[in-house]
């Protein structure tokens, strides 16, 4: 009996996609949804031995009362915004350039993608070896007599403007944005519109501004949202290249997580949850914006 109904269910074309999606939705929902629910519950659970029982907002209150947190938040938003802008502008520029100059050359495209598969831990150490005060650039400056010792070389890593972190993110994300943009630029849709604009007498700059960019921007915006979310939540790069104060939010969350103080645990999950919601909200807004642009065009 059950077997019959199961086969009928599997044959039902409307239900078919959901049956196929079920394993993925169960695993992603269970793990990811589970993480969010666990964080939600853990953040309002009273600490053992505390006076209050049931539900408490102590963890959130403690976070709000933390005088260092606003600066961490500002640093994290700055890192994500600056690196996303850099990646979009440079990535889009590189894509426009590569389309004209590289043609179909696989070698150039492959070399352009080089930073993508390199783990961020490696990227961060590479930036340290390049821009740190005893890094290669500093050594070249020293050998040329521009600086006299490592201390004279400007702090580009562990610095207030987090230049080292921005360089690492830009290095990794320019190829990401660039490859996405390049795929869009090479699509038939963009090519046909450009040809139509040219036959109507539009110049190079006019074509770029009024035809090419509006066509690729929605896709690039989606990719930019991914970059923003990633740089907002990345942990190992600010840990390796950032200053100890203020620390990026993911690093603060991790410090709370490993802190032996019992009250720290709920704060770690509360902060994790807040970061997740912020990342969500930003990306949701960017995606909605991208979709609206697509519809309008």
């Amino acid at each position, binding site marked *: 009996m059950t077997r019959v109904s199961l086969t009928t269910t599997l044959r039902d074309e409307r239900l078919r996609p959901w049956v196929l999606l079920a394993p993925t939705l169960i695993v992603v929902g269970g793990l990811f949804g589970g993480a969010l629910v666990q964080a939600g519950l853990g953040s309002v659970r009273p600490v053992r031995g505390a006076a209050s029982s049931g539900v408490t907002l102590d963890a959130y209150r403690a976070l709000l009362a933390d005088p260092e947190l606003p600066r961490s938040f500002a640093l994290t938003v700055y890192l994500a915004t600056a690196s996303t802008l850099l990646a979009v502008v440079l990535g889009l520029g590189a894509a426009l350039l590569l389309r004209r100059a590289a043609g179909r050359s696989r070698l150039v495209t492959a070399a352009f993608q080089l930073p993508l598969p390199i783990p961020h831990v490696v990227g961060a150490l590479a930036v340290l070896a390049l821009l740190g005060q005893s890094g290669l650039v500093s050594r070249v400056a020293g050998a040329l007599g521009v600086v006299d010792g490592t201390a004279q070389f400007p702090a580009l890593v562990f610095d207030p403007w987090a230049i080292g972190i921005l360089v690492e993110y830009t290095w990794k994300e320019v190829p990401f944005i660039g490859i996405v943009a390049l795929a869009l630029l090479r699509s038939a849709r963009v090519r046909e519109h450009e040809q139509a604009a040219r036959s109507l007498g539009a110049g190079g700059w006019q074509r770029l501004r009024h035809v090419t960019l509006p066509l690729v921007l929605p896709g690039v915006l989606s990719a930019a949202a991914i970059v923003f979310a990633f740089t907002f939540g990345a942990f190992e790069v600010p840990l390796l290249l950032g200053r100890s104060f203020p620390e990026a939010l993911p690093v603060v969350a991790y410090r709370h997580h490993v802190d032996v103080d019992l009250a720290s645990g709920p704060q770690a999950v509360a902060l994790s949850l807040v970061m997740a919601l912020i*990342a969500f909200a930003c990306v949701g807004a960017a995606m909605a914006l991208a979709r609206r642009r697509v519809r309008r065009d």
Partner: protein
Amino acid sequence: MASSRQLMAEPTRVAAPASAGRHPGDAAGRAWLRRVVVALLLVTLLLPLLPLAVSSVGQGYFFPQVVPETIGLRALRLILAPGAETWPALIDTVVLAGTVTLVALVIALPAGRALGLYRFRGRHTVEFLLLAPVLVPPIAVAIGLHGALLRVGLTGSMAGVVLVHLVPVLPYVVLVLAGTFANLDPDYEAQARSLGAGPVAVFRTVTLPAIAPGLATAAFFGFLVSWGQYALTLVIGGGQVVTLPILLFASASGGDTAVTSALAIFTAAPALLLLAVNAWAVTGRAVPIGGVR
């Protein structure tokens, strides 16, 4: 990723503009300039790896030497010695990334088919929800899951780390496979069926050959996403699962710069090798590997 399908499109050569400049010499000059800028761009992208390579072979490499006075293989010998920590870390990383990829492919195959071949209400919602785990900070996912995994005894174990690695890997694999299935013509399968082929035979002789390049790309994605993970492994592995990124981080806080540099190159090498293979042999497409982080 609304544009996932466009991303998979075969890049086509854009016809060179007929009249790039008003004078022929002008156009040639600009083309030459563009080539120089491209070369500069590629050099800039390669540049950060250079100091790592130099410092990995440097001995007594003090400021302001640009090229080390003595070049030696001490660091390489240390990390490649038979008893070095590198080897168990390499095995852990490969086993982890391999298992995660395999599990993800099996789970994602039907999901990719559903998203690629079916038009149904809620498809866009599912696609957005699948992106969610990629967008939320991994450290937040790890801290959120830590309590639950601790209770069932999965923290500090390979199985627990495999589970949490699925959170970022599975969505990417599903989305790549969805793009692959979108290009599959289900009529071929129907023809095979009408000729009497069973489900297994249809999959093996019709579906699998058609999706093989996409499957390879998805596996490549999944493997590299898992390979580079640090935060998830650190929090859930709790020091028991030592992958190459974990070992590298520990070495970076240790002090021997040459060893750390050599280990960094060792950690990046398989990724670069895979990239080369993917770029040249498997598909030759402009595949964004943005999931790799």
